[in-house]
């Protein structure tokens, strides 16, 4: 306890009628201001019925341009709290998406994930309402589709066919060069896991497309 802290206050001018006048006057001025606003238009809106527009640059819930994304993990690495997780299998140039989740329990909407993206495919949207009935639902998947689309399948098939043709041509060329004896070898590379590795792309594609 410090004793010198009970500082004597400067003697106040005790003006009796002055105090009365100040009180009445300042109260009247204040009530005038509040009365003016009593009739003014409200600045609030009825929220769920009426929503204020969010701006162009608003940092809301992310959206992903899935067809552009190359699953490079740059955004996940840039994230200060590691709330982004992604998983895809590579089929040559095509990606079979398994998940791209953002944990909105952690996300602090700092936009640091947007800047490092080499393909400019993750953005922050204008949605801000994060009302869910269960915490688990806050781990949101940004993917609009999972697995392979029909287009992708066609493209993979084409790439596969091209590859096979190329391999066949190579093999034929080799056979021609060596004089036969070589066997066709397209599936020897060994299966890559979920992470997908471009080195094993060609053989993966051959493996994961049994219909071909």
């Amino acid at each position, binding site marked *: *306890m*410090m*004793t010198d*802290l*009970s*500082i004597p*206050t*400067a003697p*106040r001018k005790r003006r009796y009628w002055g*105090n009365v006048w*100040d*009180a009445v*006057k*300042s*109260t009247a*001025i*204040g009530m005038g*201001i*509040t009365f003016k*606003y009593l009739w003014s238009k409200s*600045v609030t809106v009825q929220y769920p019925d009426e929503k204020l527009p*969010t*701006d*162009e*640059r*608003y*940092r809301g819930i992310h959206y992903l341009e899935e067809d552009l994304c190359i699953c490079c993990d740059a955004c996940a690495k*840039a*994230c*200060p709290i590691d709330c982004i997780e992604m998983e895809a299998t590579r089929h040559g140039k095509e990606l079979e998406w398994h998940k791209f989740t953002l944990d909105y329990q952690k996300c*602090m*909407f*700092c*936009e*640091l994930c947007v*800047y*490092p993206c080499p393909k400019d495919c993750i953005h*922050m949207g204008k949605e801000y309402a994060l009302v869910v009935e269960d915490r688990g639902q806050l781990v949101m998947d940004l993917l609009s589709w999972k697995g392979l689309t029909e287009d992708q399948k066609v493209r993979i098939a084409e790439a596969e066919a091209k590859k096979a043709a190329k391999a066949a041509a190579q093999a034929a060329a080799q056979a021609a060069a060596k004089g036969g004896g070589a066997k066709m070898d397209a599936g020897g590379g060994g299966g890559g896991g979920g992470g997908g590795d471009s080195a094993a792309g060609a053989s993966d594609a051959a493996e994961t497309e049994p219909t071909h």
Partner: protein
Amino acid sequence: MERAAPSPGLLQPGQREIELDVRTQDVEINMGPQHPSTHGVLRVLIRADGEIVTAAQSHLGYLHRCAEKIGENVDWLQYLPYTDRYDYLAAMNNNLGYSLAVEKLLGIEVPPRGQYLRTLIVELNRIASHLIAFGTYGLDIGAFTPFFYAFRERELLLDIFEKICGARLTYSFIRPGGVFNDAPPGWLQHVEDFCRQFEKKWPEYWDLLVENKIFIERTANVGIIPRDLAIAWGCTGPMLRGSGVDWDLRRDQPYLVYDRLEFKVITGVGYRGTVGDCFDRNYVRMLEMVESLKMVRQCLDQMPEGEVSHPDVGLIIRPAPGEAYVGIENPRGELGHYVVSDGSKIARRVRVRAPSFCNLSLVEHIMPGTMLADAVAIIGATDIVIGETDR
């Protein structure tokens, strides 16, 4: 309840002679952590003799999030969003403090437009922060309405911030090396519109709350911090200037472009009571809003064209080994960042000097002898943000 003689340490001789013949037990009350006017989760343990506070002790840590330790575990840039979160009412200022410290390590200079944009936006943020301080102070004193008026104007500011960086509270806008985005087209015009609007509203706050007789009675001559005491306890910001000390880092250790702007450093003058009372602290904040508005205007006039960020600073920052301290004038006082680099992409040490923390340390020493309602007024005039005191 047994009657105990008041402990000798609490009763100052001659302090309350009238009550001395009636020996009563002092009441110990926990003001907070859940209390309407402790501005978050501050807990003040108050010992009171009836309405008179005889001792007070503040307890912190209810909002501790290890922000400084996190700084040693994430990249230099990744720490930026965490700086938003200690003084969440003035996040731009926190971004700026950290960014300036990192830039000092890097030894770079931000292009002029970036500097002006930073100055402009931290001053706008200062207005927003002081608006909250003013509004919640009214709330502490018992006037509800000024709070809503303050929030109405703050909302306009938040719209401005949203337009430039996309966030309304935790901006992460000012980054080491500059700012993330240049102003969108028409944004400067928005700022100018706000200045015009705010100029009309500010006198209303003054008339409605500051000049109100009850408000004056509640705050003038309450919680006086004399000049020497304020300096001795390391108070900064409006808390220090309210005690009549003419010290402002923006003028005395200029950073950004403050040396090119004209502004007055507001100090408490005992406008309605004694120098250094709660009224003066609020008075300083009120007038600082006007000064900030002047600075915003000057920034708008002088705003140069060009780049906003230093081209060499990327997303991965690797400062040379060394250390740097930069203190800036946060709305609440000197916000210091002390950063140590070992040359890697992760900081060796990040230390924050939080103004609220230092200002709060004095509060429990000026409370004894005041009344319970004054305790609320004193906490309110300190304008603490618990996110910052606890970090």
